[in-house]
């Protein structure tokens, strides 16, 4: 089981669209896939039309009162399951602070699912918190969407610095441009410059598009309602590129 976290310190960069669409492509190819919506806003849960509620909330979850497996819901898509969000996730940091070895908590919770899923996608909330550190500990790969703007790149730098300082070497970091708008000069310039500075930038870019925005209306991954669109193809390519960095399942 490979754990992929769609993560960025900054909000609004396309983390949820990334995890939802990549998870969809993984499941579509036949891999047993789970997406865990860790964001209390519950956007991924909303996209899959699942109710954003888990029995007992974050407290029961972190205390291990329920098996994670019992909280899972099937989505409308074959091989793709969801662990829904819950509004109580907003206090996850405080609760984690109360547990022993908070960094290892997520990893421990996920470990019983190892035989059930090939890929687990974590849709993470923004910020650099205790929950983030627990995510870093659990993840094999951090998929980092970055908008080609100065602010977005500044947070990428913060993440890289944090990783270096804390010597977090257990996960790979795969960075790619998200919401890229080729009509904007700044986007074009940064997209040319950044991969030279950070060699682990992926080749695939996700374009800024109305189809991705429409996910909220259609409540489905892009490929389900705009299969032949550029965005759908871009996510398919991104998945192939990300997959090439993972061991075969």
């Amino acid at each position, binding site marked *: 089981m490979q754990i992929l976290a769609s993560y960025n310190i900054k909000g609004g960069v396309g983390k949820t669209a990334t995890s939802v669409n990549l998870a969809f492509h993984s499941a579509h*190819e036949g891999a047993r896939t789970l997406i865990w919506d860790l964001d209390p806003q519950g956007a991924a849960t909303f996209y899959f*039309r*699942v109710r954003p509620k888990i029995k007992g909330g974050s407290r029961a979850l972190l205390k291990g009162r329920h098996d994670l*497996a019992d909280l*899972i*819901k*099937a989505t409308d898509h074959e091989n793709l399951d969801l662990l829904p969000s819950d509004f109580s996730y907003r206090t996850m940091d405080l609760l984690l602070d109360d547990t022993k070895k908070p960094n290892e908590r997520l990893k421990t919770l996920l470990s019983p699912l190892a035989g059930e899923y090939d890929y687990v996608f974590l849709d993470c909330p923004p910020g650099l918190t205790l929950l983030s550190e627990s995510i870093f500990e659990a993840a094999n790969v951090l998929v980092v969407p970055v908008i080609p703007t100065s602010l977005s790149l500044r947070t990428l730098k913060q993440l890289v610095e944090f990783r270096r300082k804390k010597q977090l070497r257990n996960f790979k970091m795969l960075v790619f441009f998200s919401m890229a708008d080729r009509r904007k000069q700044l986007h074009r310039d940064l997209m040319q410059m950044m991969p030279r500075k950070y060699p682990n930038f992926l080749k695939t870019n996700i374009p800024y598009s109305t189809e991705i925005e429409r996910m909220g209306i259609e409540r489905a991954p892009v490929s389900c309602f705009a299969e032949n669109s550029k965005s759908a193809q871009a996510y398919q390519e991104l998945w192939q590129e990300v997959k090439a960095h993972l061991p075969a399942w």
Partner: protein
Amino acid sequence: MLLKRPHYQIPSLTEAQSLLERIKEQFPLTELPSQHWEYVYYDTFDSRLFKNQQLLRQETRTDVEDESWLCWLSLTGNRVLQRGRSPVQESVIEQLPSIPLRPLLEPILHPRSLLSLFKISVHQQWLVWKNKDEKTVLRVMLESTKLFRENQLEDLQNRLVILPFRGYPKPSQQINRFCREEGLEELNEDLFQIVCGKLELKPGSYQPKPKLKLSPLGRTDQALRSILRASTKVMDLNHQGTIEAPDTEFLHDFRVACRRARSALNQLKGVFPPEQIQDFRDDFAWLSDRTGPTRDLDVYLLDFNSYQAQLPEEQQADLEAFRELLQTENAKEQKLLAKDLQSKRYQKFRSNWEDFLTDQTPSTTTGGAAEVRKTASRRLLRSYHRCLAEGKAIDHDSPDEALHDLRKSCKKLRYLLEFFESLWPAKEFQGILKPLKALQEDLGQFNDCSVQQESLKNFGDMLAKQQPVPAQTLVAMGMLVSTLNQRQAEARQRFQASFSGFASTRTQNRFNLLFQQPILVEELN
């Protein structure tokens, strides 16, 4: 956790339709447009996927354009291991080199190719149950399947499949209760199993070295006929594949089966009068001779990448001209071989051979009437002692030919052991087979290196005659010869160690004890 997907058998399509209507009346299910598919199942000749508990199926929509999937499934069909889009018009066999599944399938399949097993037509009617949020919480599918058989469609089955959704148990509980109340019978057999049963396919049953069950007190002529019949069956199973050559292994198995039959005839002399079997011995010698060149070239091509890997990276591409030569020669030889295997001579041999194998008349020789276990013991001991004598005579100064001769003698001993394995307890046999296998391994490697060096030199001469001569290729081939020479020397160095295991007092005692004083299987049990 994969949820159970119960499926219920429905006797007829009419009943299925009225059942669907009743389901729609009772439950909030809506119907989706129906779908037509054609499924083609694939596996290798020796059922490699089936043995791995897997299936490969190409699923093509026939009611819409341009939708085809290649699905790699678990044997029960319950779980998709992986799937990818596939070109509609092409068969899987043609497209395999380019499909995304290839890196995953190749280690299982290599060097065998895929063959299509059967094709079925599938009609699906889908019903979905959605909750207030328009979220699907259950799917129900009515599936009618037909089998393509001799250009006709034959009814297979109609079944109702319940597809529950994790985290939403109630709808599926209700539908399953309804099905039970309707008196529907739950099916356990999968579609693949049902079709295999209908077509009398027995996937996984092919054995290139069939296990024989000989009767210890039976006559030797009867035992020899059983041995020959088993090898002939393997030859027949591979005959067409050897002619068409979708992969290299048909020829390999065909050739090994010929060699085993030939070895049995040659080694058990005196079981039949010489005049009765002389023609067959000649025919087997002819077959061995005819199948040799193609197989040698096959082996070269199969190992080509590893040869290349032995060269420094910058010189690897230089060998490509050599690969092309091998491919051309291989195609030429394959054509000749296919012709031989369809020739009058082969047909005549096969028909006379069949008469001989099915003839129940006891042999007129004393050897033929002898008890098989006694004959086998005598032959095995003689063969072992011959190997011992040949091996002991080999020292550092012995010519390579001495090792080649010993390799042949060991092969004969190995065949004899395999033919007569069933006459002795399996455990006893393992003790004598193990040191023999180790010795054969080293001798085999020694021989392969020597043969390959020889043919590399010949191929080098052939290439040199071609215009223009790629000089780098000849240099690369020369380097390969020296690598092979080195490996041959290493194998020769290992020989003394592996031979000492084979010739140890312990192994000698085992042979002598087992074959000088024959022990009945029953006595040991």
